[in-house]
């Protein structure tokens, strides 16, 4: 799968309270969540994000709470992929479980700027910055996680397990 989009840039330790503040957690409707995504970090984000856009961030993206509302809000906002230097672990597993593509790549996270255009090959973990021409290689996923992604997330995976 090749993803193409314009980047939004965020720093280190972007926490789940920034991604989706708890004051909006009285619902789990992805559309309502998306309307407040990243609100406390960049109030313009939810209004200006376009389908396919890519989030690029530094270390420890998604730290804090286990709320799946965070990757759900990002996904429903139209973000096609999150590239970060590192992810907080619960966010990481939540993203895989719900089928939000993510890539860990410190080099790309360090250099890519806001508004640049990227082309991402998920299977290969290859990130091409078409604005600057630079190419980055993210670490590939272990086999089990590739299976999880191929199944379309954890629920289809569990369903196939229960049927056999």
């Amino acid at each position, binding site marked *: 799968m090749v993803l193409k989009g314009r980047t939004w840039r965020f720093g280190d*330790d972007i*926490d789940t*309270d*920034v991604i989706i*503040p*708890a*004051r909006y*957690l*009285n*619902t*789990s409707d992805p559309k309502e969540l998306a309307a407040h995504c990243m609100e*406390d*970090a960049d109030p313009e984000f939810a209004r200006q994000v376009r389908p396919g856009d890519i989030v690029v961030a530094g*270390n*420890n993206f998604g*730290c*804090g*709470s*286990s*709320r*799946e*509302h965070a*990757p*759900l809000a990002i996904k429903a906002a139209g973000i096609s992929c999150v590239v970060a230097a*590192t992810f*907080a*672990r*619960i966010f990481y*597993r*939540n993203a895989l*479980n*719900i089928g939000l593509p993510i890539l860990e790549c410190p080099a790309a996270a360090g250099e890519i700027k806001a508004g640049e255009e990227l082309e991402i090959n998920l299977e290969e973990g290859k990130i091409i910055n078409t604005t600057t021409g630079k190419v980055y290689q993210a670490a590939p996923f*272990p086999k*089990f*996680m590739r299976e*999880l992604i191929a199944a379309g*997330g*954890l*629920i289809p*995976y*569990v*369903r196939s*397990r*229960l049927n056999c």
Partner: protein
Amino acid sequence: MTITEKILAAHAGKQEVKPGELINARVDLVLGNDITAPVAIKEFARIGVDKVFDPEAIALVPDHFTPNKDIKSAEQAKMVREFAKKYGIVHYFEVGKMGIEHCLLPEQGLVGPGDLVIGADSHTCTYGALGAFSTGVGSTDMAAGMALGEVWLKVPPSIRFHYYGTLPPWVGGKDLILYTIGRIGVDGALYSAMEFTGETVAALTMDDRFTMANMAIEAGAKNGIFPVDEKTLAYIDGRLKRPHKVYASDPEAEYAKEYEFDVSRLEPQVALPHLPENARPVSEITDVRIDQVVIGSCTNGRMKDLREAAQLLKGRRVHPEVRLIVIPGTQEIYLQALKEGLITDFIEAGGVVSTPTCGPCLGGYMGILAHGERAVATTNRNFVGRMGHPESEVYLAGPAVAAASAVKGRIAHPEEVSGNGA
């Protein structure tokens, strides 16, 4: 192997596991709350099974926005209630019986040493205080866990934190963990197990240990865990209804890193906005004026915390420009505090006491901060907007500093209120 590796191996049906290995592990308990369970319930419906793997091994605790603060949150709680009824969930805690999940589950004897617990709440790591492996997961994991009784996990490398020295007066578990996170950073234990050892830890009360394990996630850890000793066994005695198994790290167990801290001169700690890693000795920041103090949460809403706060507040008055909010962690704690006269102390000092709820800890309700306001809170996160307005500030501290600050109207060392010594 470390204690974490041994518990994971036992639950994966293996002799041995190594850090980095992906395993499928059997779970002893699956937890969800009124925010995360509704999402899990929707996902559970998508799986298409007609029963949960074990109605006794699921705990549903509506605690974040209950008693419900608005219509939307009431709808979410209703969804959890109906699910519990439909699937015969034994450990569903209705308003009146509920408490903050991570205070409640150990108290009710639902977790014991050697258990593997997953919870759709990041502070599920709290039960490591009992020598259990427990970790926060997402709602989809919770749904899969309820259906299968299993979870996929990557075996974490373990980092050992060894503490020695006798703690000075007014210094407790919260100060130890804030200091530790201050030293290693909010991603200092990313993907890892934090194992807490040493003579200082052995001398800690169970309540202090719960506080420390609770905040392992604040260093990015997968779990925090303590050795099981006579205090652990005394705590579970009469509570835990299931058999348990005690695991211990081998002397030759391998650690990714080891830290040693001499804490004999540790001062009470305060973490400045907006990250738990911004820990400082309290004496460095006593000029910060505050508007609100919150004493409670899954970090510091237990008996030891309330007793410590009451010790400083009894017979004193909360500063006229400060609002003090005290929230006991569970109904049992509330009742005990009532019997000991602590509730009277809080109210006579000018504080309010709330029924158990997460409430202000996550900026839900019962004490939201306005623009520019500052709070000292015994909670665990001081992220931007965590307790209300994005331009409000939260300073994290233990109950003693929180109570002293409430009296002084600014961040204060407990000794400023108590006089020297305890």
